């Protein structure tokens, strides 16, 4: 494994940080300039991240050490396939989200827009840091920054509900942060190092009970952001946030950071071999499977569109964790790839929810009858996203689910295959009525039969993300070599076995 010293990961993190400062100092008076910074920074960041793809595909690792934090642990960025996968995903979706955000906040004439964009940029900076973190401490540092910078976004509306949502979010994530911190320090005392290593670095250290305990703590800790089932409560509550924030929270930054953390723990800290030795993988997989089924049932019961999407997110995140826990090449590839494909599909769905809200101020599914005729593009994108999530070919969700299913068979665990299939059925069950009603059902009250879409700033991004999820379904390596990144990452992790 060749390592190259490169400042690019640092730049990718810094560019948004500087952007955030520019946004603050530009302020409310020059709105256009402020929005220009947002777009400029998001594009710049994407370019920087993409420029790292060729190196990483060749199997090299980009590394940049900023400063030593404590003996044996540095503030260090190391870009490997898995990290880059997440980085590309986040930075690509940020462009879409920021364009969409501008349309959204202006469409609703939101207050405190500067704070909104500032925190958005900060979030992305932190997400990039999480993606490129070379060790657990660096990951944790950015993880906490992400937590704190998301809080103002959740509480953005400043209504009683929003403040409560913010409190709940903070309570869950910071308690989780404390748990993670404890586990990290414990690992540090065991090994003296925290650097990620494909296949894990804990093998042969410490007693098995200690390790099981640590694993439980870490999964519980990261599982909060990944909304694994007993710790998911904050996510539906956080739906009071503005829709682009929900999109960011649920498709890209926060929950994916949680899943990313879980996967880093499973694959790069503990590693397949150790998990097999300790028999933890099966427990974790059952744990995740439980979430998959229960969250699917919850989703069916929701009438609020965003809440239904939130539970669908919980469902999919659990599928990712379940896949990783199976520890077979197919399952790992599938679960990593599903992080990306789910990101594109779910962000489309949230964008659609926001577009509907801005246009019609409707939030509930029962009110959407006949909307397809008024907003065909929007609802068309929704159809693609929803079908993708359910795993219909040729949308990218199919590919990830296919590999996950293969993985279940490789691990000889048919029960998880069943779980996957049931969850796909549930996906269909809770998305299909929306699609059917909006296109075919005759509305009870008269609805504007003419074409009347949301502002272009909102429609364009959601169409683009829908199209990309379609293209990724046909050519999984299109644009950014997503699939290659996922499969090589899986190969490298299991190569350590």
């Amino acid at each position: 494994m060749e390592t190259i010293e490169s400042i690019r990961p640092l730049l990718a993190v810094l560019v948004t940080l500087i952007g955030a400062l520019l946004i603050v100092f530009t302020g409310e008076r020059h709105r256009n300039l402020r929005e220009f910074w947002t777009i400029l920074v998001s594009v710049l960041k994407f370019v920087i991240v993409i420029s790292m793809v060729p190196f990483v595909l060749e199997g090299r690792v980009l590394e940049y050490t900023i400063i030593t934090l404590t003996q044996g642990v540095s503030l260090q960025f190391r870009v490997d396939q898995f990290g880059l996968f997440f980085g590309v995903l986040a930075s690509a979706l940020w462009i879409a989200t920021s364009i969409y955000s501008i349309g959204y906040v202006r469409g609703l004439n939101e207050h405190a827009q500067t704070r909104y964009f500032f925190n958005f940029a900060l979030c992305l900076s932190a997400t990039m840091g999480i993606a490129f973190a070379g060790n657990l401490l660096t990951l944790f540092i950015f993880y906490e920054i992400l937590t704190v910078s998301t809080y103002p976004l959740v509480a953005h509306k400043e209504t009683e509900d929003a403040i409560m949502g913010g409190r709940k979010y903070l309570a869950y994530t910071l308690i989780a942060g404390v748990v993670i911190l404890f586990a990290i320090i414990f690992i540090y005392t065991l090994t003296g190092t925290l650097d990620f290593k494909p296949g894990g670095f804990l093998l042969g250290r410490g007693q098995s009970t200690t390790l099981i305990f640590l694993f439980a703590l870490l999964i519980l800790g990261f599982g909060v952001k990944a909304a694994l089932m007993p710790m998911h409560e904050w996510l539906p509550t956080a739906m009071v946030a503005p829709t682009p924030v929900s999109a960011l929270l649920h498709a890209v930054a926060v929950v994916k950071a949680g899943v990313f953390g879980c996967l880093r723990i499973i694959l790069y800290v503990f590693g397949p071999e150790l998990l097999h030795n300790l028999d933890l993988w099966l427990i974790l997989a059952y744990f995740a499977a439980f979430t998959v089924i229960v969250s699917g049932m919850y989703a069916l019961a929701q009438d609020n569109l965003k809440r239904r999407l939130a539970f669908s997110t919980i469902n999919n995140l659990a599928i990712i964790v379940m896949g990783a826990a199976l520890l077979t090449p197919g399952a790992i590839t599938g679960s990593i790839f599903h992080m990306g494909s789910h990101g594109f599909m779910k962000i489309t769905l949230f964008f659609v929810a926001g577009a509907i809200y801005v246009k019609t101020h409707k939030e509930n599914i029962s009110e959407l009858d006949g909307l397809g005729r008024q907003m065909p593009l929007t609802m068309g994108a929704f159809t693609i996203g929803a079908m993708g999530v359910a795993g219909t070919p040729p949308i990218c969700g199919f590919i990830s689910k296919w590999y996950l299913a293969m993985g279940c068979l490789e691990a000889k665990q048919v029960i998880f295959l069943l779980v996957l299939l049931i969850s796909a059925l549930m996906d269909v069950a809770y998305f299909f009525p929306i699609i059917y009603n909006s296109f075919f059902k005759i509305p009870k009250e008269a609805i504007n039969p003419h074409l009347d879409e949301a502002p272009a700033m909102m429609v364009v991004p959601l169409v683009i993300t829908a199209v990309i999820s379609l293209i990724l379904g046909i050519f999984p390596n299109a644009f950014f070599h997503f699939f290659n990144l996922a499969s090589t990452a899986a190969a490298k992790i299991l190569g350590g076995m």
Partner: protein
Amino acid sequence: MTPQSPVLLVVIPLIFAFLTLPFGWWRKGLCYPITLVALSLSFLASLHTLHTVITTGTIHYWLGNWEPPWGIEYVVDHLNAFVLVIVSFVSLVVAIYSKRSVEQELPEKIVFFYCVFLLQVAGLLGIVVTGDMFNLYVFLEIASLAGYALIAIGEDGAPFASFNYLIFGTIGACFYLLGVGYLYVSTGSLNMADLFQILPDLYQSKVVLVAFAFFMVGVGLKMALFPLHVWLPDAYTYAPSTVSALLAPLMTKVGAYVMIRIMFTVFKPQFCIELIPVTTILGWMAAGAILFGAVMALAQTDLKRMLAYILVSEVGYIALGVGLANRAGLTGAILHILNDSFMMLALFLVVGAIMYRSGKREISQLRYLHRRMPFTMAAFVIAALSVIGIPPTCGFFSKWYLILGAIDASQWAFVAVLLVSSLLNVILFFRVIEHAYLEPDEEHAGGGSELAITIEEAPLSMLVPILIATAGIMVFGVLSGKIISTVIQFAVPKCF
């Protein structure tokens, strides 16, 4: 040739303190520049001292060229050089800040204020620089007396709070003096290095034990270690804002420094750990302090009072690090001396600025503050995050080492206390942040209407120190590894 900087950095503020009287009598406005000059010089001297210590090792300065153990010796090793720089820098920052605040709060007492302010700093620096037990007592009293006087000139409740502080402070100082007496009786020496050599033979002696007990109680009172903290909340709540901003970061930290010095470089660590379980007791007291401070802070509605209780809890962190008595714990404790100085500095400066502009400090009265004073509140948020322990602010790294030390020592209760206190701090600070930032009024929910609230930021001479302190919080967080590898790892007593 020994450098003169160790003595200069004490003497300069002392001399300038007396210069402020005639000059201030002539022109009131001169006091402020004189103070700034004195403290800048003192800061430069402390930097030079630190530099010398890092490059050439411990400095021994014989006052009047009297050879120790007969004469007074100033010994500057990594530990005190480090604390010296903190003290002189923090006091310089507070001095810059003081101008407007003192003009507003104490218009008739400017000359007096700056004179005593400089005396206070001289006392604090003297405590840190000296290598002689009795000399330390004298400086301790100089600093404390200046502190009583400074606190007493505050608002309504101040004199009474200051009187209580005086009673407790005097008891503490007297106990310390008694400790010195007992130690002198049994060893015949007052020089710390000398005592370090002599004492091991006498560890079984009851007199030495009693001396040690007196030291711990005395210093515990001075540093407001729970349950000896009772004087602190009132005193720091009613003191003028500048004074709280000076005393809160420094007085308790210097007390903590004295504790570390006595426990580990006058007595030997084995004495405090094995012969008598001082460190264990200290650890439990510290754990009590952390929880008690945080819980009491929760009950406060007055922002400054809340900070005072948080200070009680922060002192607990340092004491906990000492109580863990291992390398990581002590590293954390010493690092926290730096970090907490800056956190408390920033917080108390912010409260002072808020009071300067609005005269308010009830938490419920802070609404819309982020629009009026955006920079001040941003600084508050960063300092708050640091107290909570969110990376990459400096507070996180001291917590890191403390938890590391607690795990190393297998003290799971302390680990739990440290973790829980983080969460308590979250509640504490987000309560304030919600009040200051969020506006759950109907007209704001979703609407774009902006109330006509103009920016009334604190004046520049107050804002710059606040920003310096905040920058310090961020920078020391990122550089903590560097600070530890250049200074603190040598400052931790050798035997760990």
